């Protein structure tokens, strides 16, 4: 035991502090294979007071740390490289559900889907639905500004967070709230969402709950070319319809899903399918279905299928939500991309991605939020094969540069973390990166929370002059 682990044990209890390498093994990864960093110590506070005491102890000892939810992130953001990892999954109380105000206040370790379960008796749900929703936590969702298929209509985490209590890296506890319409003040809550654990540790979050829609219609449209599916996506949105979700899966993804235990009955010979869902008031809903069907057929859809009941709908969705997992059958590693491009550029960009993939002899599986233009060209590969790994990384860089050149961004919902740090300078000029560092400095002047993530540190004007915070 080191003096620090002894002190942390006194706060949370010895069994909630890990420091043996074998115990720390599972905390070396997050949801993205390919990065391994071992924390020096992992500490698991069980209450708000314990979390505050842990952060204050680390502040006093000048030790940097990484907050972590369920570790399902896809950017390497929750990895702690020989520093302290603060695991928040023991803080999983749903503090209140207020059906009149349509809000809930929860601790950060509450699993996304459990919040919806708690809201279900009131006819409400928590709208942001990342594919990992059965495992990921609300605290992690806030840190990453997580998205999900239904964010097309309902908005991302940012649009659903109302307030939070946060312990800043310096140990102060602050209440953040998104300013109401006529209240003046900085939107520090909005700035905190998506800060990837660099601005503090979340103690509780108040989120908006959404009324369950009166009706839901889920459709599967089957195309013989990816280009047609991409054109149909643009045409649906251009027609003024705002689907709850509009997802595209290409043949490589369909093959992965249909060969796995998550088989959803997608047509294996389709070049692409669109999974389209509309919801809302029953009045007018079937008119939207009719319009979408017509547009898909005009764009070349071979077949349209409407889910017959809730079980059928769940099956169609399972294939989509478990697609990343299904790719795990193909190879030991998976490179995950998360670029967003202007929707009208989808078709040409997908063609270019196919060309890049063929040239580097890699297996690109496209599964993504087409309605938002949020691509996930994922590549299963064998990480122990240096030649294949090099080809994957070269292709990934080309794909990212293509998306940026087309007016897109490098990440739409997974965060920068470690994995996309190297692309930040191609996206933002130096003054913009420096401004981001300054915002971080307002929350964490000593740069102790999740150091080395999100913004390349050499871009921060005064970064190198900072106190070298290492235990």
């Amino acid at each position: 035991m080191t003096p620090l682990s002894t002190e942390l044990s006194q706060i949370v209890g010895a069994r909630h502090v890990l420091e043996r390498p074998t115990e720390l093994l599972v905390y070396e990864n997050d949801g993205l294979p390919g990065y391994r960093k071992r924390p020096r110590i992992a500490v698991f506070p069980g209450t708000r007071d314990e979390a505050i005491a842990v952060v204050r102890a680390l502040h006093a000892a000048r030790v940097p740390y990484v907050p972590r939810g369920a570790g399902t992130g896809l950017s390497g953001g929750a990895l702690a490289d020989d520093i302290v990892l603060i695991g928040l999954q023991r803080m999983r109380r749903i503090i209140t559900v207020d059906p009149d105000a349509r809000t809930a206040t929860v601790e950060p370790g509450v699993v996304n889907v459990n919040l919806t379960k708690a809201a279900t008796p009131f006819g409400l749900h928590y709208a942001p639905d990342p594919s990992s929703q059965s495992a990921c936590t609300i605290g992690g969702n806030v840190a990453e500004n997580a998205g999900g298929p239904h964010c097309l209509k309902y908005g991302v985490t940012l649009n659903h967070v109302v307030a939070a209590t946060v312990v800043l890296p310096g140990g102060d506890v602050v209440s953040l709230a998104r300013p109401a319409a006529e209240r003046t003040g900085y939107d520090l809550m909005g700035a905190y969402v998506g800060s990837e654990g660099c601005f503090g540790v979340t103690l509780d979050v108040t989120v908006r709950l959404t009324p369950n829609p009166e009706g839901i219609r889920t459709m599967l449209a089957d195309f013989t070319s990816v280009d047609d599916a991409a054109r149909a996506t643009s045409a649906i949105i251009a027609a003024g319809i705002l689907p709850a979700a509009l997802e595209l899966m290409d043949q490589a993804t369909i093959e992965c899903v249909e060969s796995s235990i998550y088989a959803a009955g997608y047509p294996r010979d389709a070049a692409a399918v669109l999974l389209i869902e509309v919801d809302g008031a029953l009045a007018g809903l079937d008119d939207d279905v009719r319009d979408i069907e017509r547009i898909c057929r005009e764009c070349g859809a071979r077949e349209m299928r409407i889910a017959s009941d809730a079980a059928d709908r769940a099956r169609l969705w399972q294939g989509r939500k478990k697609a990343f997992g299904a790719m795990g059958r193909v190879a030991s590693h998976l490179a995950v991309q998360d670029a967003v491009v202007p929707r009208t550029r989808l078709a040409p960009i997908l063609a270019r991605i196919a060309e890049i993939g063929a040239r580097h002899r890699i297996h690109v599986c496209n599964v993504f939020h087409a309605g938002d233009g949020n691509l996930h060209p994922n590549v299963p590969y064998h990480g122990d094969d240096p030649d294949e790994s090099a080809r994957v990384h070269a292709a990934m860089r080309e794909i990212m540069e293509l998306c940026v050149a087309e007016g897109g961004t490098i990440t739409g919902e997974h965060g920068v973390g470690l994995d996309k740090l190297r692309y930040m300078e191609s996206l933002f000029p130096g003054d913009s990166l420096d401004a981001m560092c300054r915002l971080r400095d307002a929350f964490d002047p000593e740069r102790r929370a999740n150091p080395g993530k999100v913004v390349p540190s050499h871009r921060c004007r005064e970064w190198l002059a900072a106190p070298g915070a290492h235990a």
Partner: protein
Amino acid sequence: MTLRPATAVELADIVRDAHDRHAKLRIAAANTWPERSRLVASDAATLDLSALSGITEYVPGDLTLTARASTTIAEIDAATAAHGQWCPLLPWGGDAGTIGATFSTATHGPCSASLGAPRDLAIGLEFVDGTGALVRAGGRVVKNVAGFDLTRLLVGSWGTLGAITQVSVRLRARPAVDETWSIAISRDARARLDALRRGPLAPLAAEESDGRVLIRLGGNAAFVAASRAAVKALGPAEPCDAGEWTRLRAADPHPRAPLTASALSDALSQRVKKQFDPRHILNPGIMGEGVS
């Protein structure tokens, strides 16, 4: 004194110079807003952004638009209407106001609850901070988590962290059917109006005016028909011109609520301010923080 930069780069030069001289600046665009309760230090020079105007990028298929700060709401409305779209901000204060001011102040409008407020609709912006750095935040795509969210920080900061030079917003398709009704509403119908607003047939907007409630319905024909029937059940209803909303918005200029205390009293807000405007030269006093 009035300074009128022609470009964002010129603006950055002016602010950098003011920063070096500790000179205060009052940011202005169309000057449509009364300053009651929002006084800027009287010794501030006026920084007139009216030359930074015009839509710089609009791809209707992407439902996104980028415009310089002093582009008026009216100009954006006309450009998007031509493609059956709109920027659904429709802020209080009317159409002569600018997009930059709307986002700087996070001004809502009658449709904000249903179609989104500035904090929801901004996808990126460019600003010059209090040191003269020209900063680009966010981007032009509808989903973006690359880096820390400077866009959210600037929206609603009343120019005290930076002068916004350009804004990118997400647009929406105009509803296929868009109609407005004025209803006289009895006390007991009020609860039913609240229920309607929280239910699946919710209107785009509902505002009280002169003892009546102005209701805006939008959606496809079948939806609006059902919604209209629910509205008519509330009380005697008369159809109105959509222009009624423009009049209502113009009659209710921003700011709606006076500022009674400093909005920058907490330590974290003060640290943010110090990072972006260390010499307190941008709109000093406008957040009620007291002019030093």
